[in-house]
């Protein structure tokens, strides 16, 4: 499964998308993210399954 990785360096900063990892489980994805993006002392680091991201976009309105 693909996971998108988000992080911020300091509390109050914007949380930014910093990359992605591929993992067989949510638990493993958390560890992969920590190992792979270890260049900063993150205040916050999170992973989100790519399939759970909901895109917001204009769509054709339905008609009755």
């Amino acid at each position, binding site marked *: 499964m693909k996971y998108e990785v988000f992080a911020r360096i300091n509390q109050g900063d914007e949380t930014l998308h910093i990359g992605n*990892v*591929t*993992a067989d489980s949510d638990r*493993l994805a*958390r*560890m992969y993210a920590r*190992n792979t993006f270890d260049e900063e002392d993150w205040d916050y680091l999170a992973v989100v399954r790519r399939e759970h991201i909901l895109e917001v976009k204009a769509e054709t309105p339905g008609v009755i």
Partner: protein
Amino acid sequence: MDEWPDPAVDYMQAIVDTKLILGHRYGQWALAGPSLEDDIGGASASQEEIGHVRQLASRLQAQGRDLEWIHGDRDATEFANAACLDSIDGEWPTYMASTAPADRAAWYLLDAIAIEDLQGMLTKMGEDEYFHLEYHDARLETLAESAPDTIQAALETTLPQALSFIGPATYDEETDPVFTSGFTDRSVAEIREAFIAHYTDLFEGTAVSLDGVDFDAPDPDTWDEARRRVGGGSISEADLRQLRGTENKLFEIN
């Protein structure tokens, strides 16, 4: 406690030796993982283990151990590492089932140390170890699905070896010399219970059965207190040369 009792010095030496060989094994396998993320994790863990060795070795030096000896200037049979790290004969699943129990056992022994002036250092090491152990468990969970027979067969060897590294079940609050000296705040028997419970829970409901694991190991009558194992065995001479950097000394610039 300025001067540690002899059993406590041996106890710390076994932890340091296990971390030294763990760092070596992580480094050896850091380019052999099934994914780039596994490789990066191995390289990161290798650096952290060697960092822990440097910190703990200085404490052993303060107790009279020679630093060069600690760093590898000795015979292979003088190392007191967990026996499941002596050699890893197999592929990635076997490597995971060998390093994971050794890393967890070493942390449990370290976490039990009650010496006040070590607590800050141990807290920092614990932050590193959280990620090592969580990664191992996450990986073993996935391997329990994809390679259950290999994991089960490896654990039947490595879990008793890790238990031998922790110590015999007969070392309880009345008989464990490290606990009774005040160096640790829990006995070997208590550490073993936590270790066994962890792996029992981890594999419960998976295709990996631990029914064939000898959870009574080691036999206290044949257990080597200094090397924390039974039956001899050691890392190889090739491992020792790598640890010492023997071949690399040829390239040393004076």
